[in-house]
């Protein structure tokens, strides 16, 4: 066959165009629901303030007392994340141990007995609910109960991340090698002994690495929680934005980008060292 008898045009062209058009028609309700009007951005009334705000970004505010404030709030952000993750571990570890099938004694003889099965399933559902409520909603609720301040942020992170960590810990324990743990259980060791000597050695690296990854995510969350009054960098950012203080916003965004990059690097380095 000569090469120039090959079709010059894409034979699937009509089909591709048809699919594109169908997609556009399907997208129409989405555009309506999201009030998608890009020209609003170029409207005089919004363009003016936007440009003014952006122009105020340069130069970023670098006054010493402001930098000291930003430094203090950055530490608070990290501290909220760290304290939250520590409390989350207190929730996650016991619940993961309760939820994992790998430590079931009745399942050694075939099917798990009814009561342990219900207990495990209930624990798993509790973890899923904890995890599905966004941390911002928890924070809104706790701000009502304990008032503005870092306590609400720490509790919100503890609950959401407790659910996430617990669920994933359970899965990691179940996906690992069970042989050692089952042997220990069959020979009459307790569940905790089977966990420490049979399950943990296999999965310690993976568990630690996931925890570090979540700590990194928690730092990002703790900035966001500041927007509902849980303290830290987010709260200062929110205040400066409301006052249209472009220079302050620019400094804090830069600090924030640096913080996230640093957490990213630290977490990648630690996880590599563990592997």
């Amino acid at each position: 066959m000569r090469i120039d008898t090959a079709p010059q045009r894409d034979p699937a062209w009509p089909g591709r165009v048809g699919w594109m058009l169908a997609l556009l028609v399907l997208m129409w309700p989405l555009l309506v629901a999201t009030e998608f009007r890009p020209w609003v951005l170029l409207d005089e009334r919004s363009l003016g303030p936007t440009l003014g705000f952006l122009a105020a970004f340069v130069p970023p505010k670098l006054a010493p007392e402001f930098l000291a404030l930003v430094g203090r709030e950055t530490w608070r952000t990290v501290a909220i994340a760290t304290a939250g993750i520590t409390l989350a571990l207190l929730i996650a570890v016991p619940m993961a141990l309760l939820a994992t099938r790998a430590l079931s004694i009745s399942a050694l003889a075939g099917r798990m007995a009814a009561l342990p099965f219900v207990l495990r399933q209930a624990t798993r559902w509790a973890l899923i609910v904890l995890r599905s409520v966004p941390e911002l909603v928890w924070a809104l609720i706790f701000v009502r109960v304990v008032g503005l301040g870092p306590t609400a942020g720490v509790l919100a992170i503890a609950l959401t991340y407790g659910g996430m960590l617990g669920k994933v810990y359970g899965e990691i324990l179940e996906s690992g090698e069970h042989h050692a743990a089952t042997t220990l259980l069959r020979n009459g060791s307790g569940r905790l002994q089977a966990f420490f000597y049979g399950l943990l050695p296999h999965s310690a690296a993976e568990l630690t690495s996931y925890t570090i990854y979540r700590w990194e995510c928690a730092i990002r969350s703790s900035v966001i929680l500041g927007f509902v009054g849980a303290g830290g960098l987010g709260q200062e950012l929110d205040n400066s934005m409301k006052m249209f203080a472009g220079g302050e916003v620019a400094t804090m965004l830069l600090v924030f980008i640096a913080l996230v990059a640093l957490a990213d690097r630290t977490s990648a380095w630690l996880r590599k060292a563990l592997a």
Partner: protein
Amino acid sequence: MNSRDPRLLLPPPIFDARCKACWFTLGLLLLVVASFWSLDLQWRAFFAADSIASMRRFIGEFFPPDLSAAFLTKVAWGAWETLAMSALGTLLAAAAGLALALPAARLHDSDRARSRAPTRLLLNALRSIPELVWAALLLISAGLGPFAGTLALALHTTGVLGRLFAEALENAPPGPGFALRAQGVGNGRVFLYATLPQVLPQLMSYTLYRWENNIRAAAVLGVVGAGGLGQLLAFHMGLFHMGKTATIIGAMLVLVALVDAMSFAARRWLTR
């Protein structure tokens, strides 16, 4: 008897100045203690009897959730708005991410990829600012409402997807592209007919994964005024309408569970 027999050696001492794990653990403990110490958390206020009672009253107010037809329609509209924001934001981000992934990737060996480093820097900046902060910034130019939220989701997700897409493009098998290039086909058509078809399933699966994340994010974006269920939540919680708040949180849970199930099914269908 040989004392170097591994069975007779003592286990290593727990602390050793050259043991990295010990220093790491020590550092971690210091970090945790410093965090708790510097935050002056109000545990006493939190666990005090009257606070527990007020907590109980507060939770009690959530019940019964407001299930009147009028309010349910409002919540359903909020959920639809959230869903539309996340879907449109993800679509826009997929398009922008692909457009930015091309300059951010080294497409073939003789590609000098001068734009790679600056584009990656841009993608990293987009990615490291969370959706909520983007939304708060965009309120100034896009006004209150779901449009700001959609753009905020799109900006953050562009950073995430652009980087993932660039990596997928760089890791695509070079064979088909090389064959076309050897025939003198231009870069655009090499991408469309050789590289894209190979990486498309992977790009779709990344996009679906991000969509799933974005629904969670879209549900709370409204707290700063960017539309969706979050806006309803912030409004009713601000007015202490606890029954209505409970309904909205329930709707969020249902939405997230629904999306998890759908995305799971779709991914299984794609990787079948």
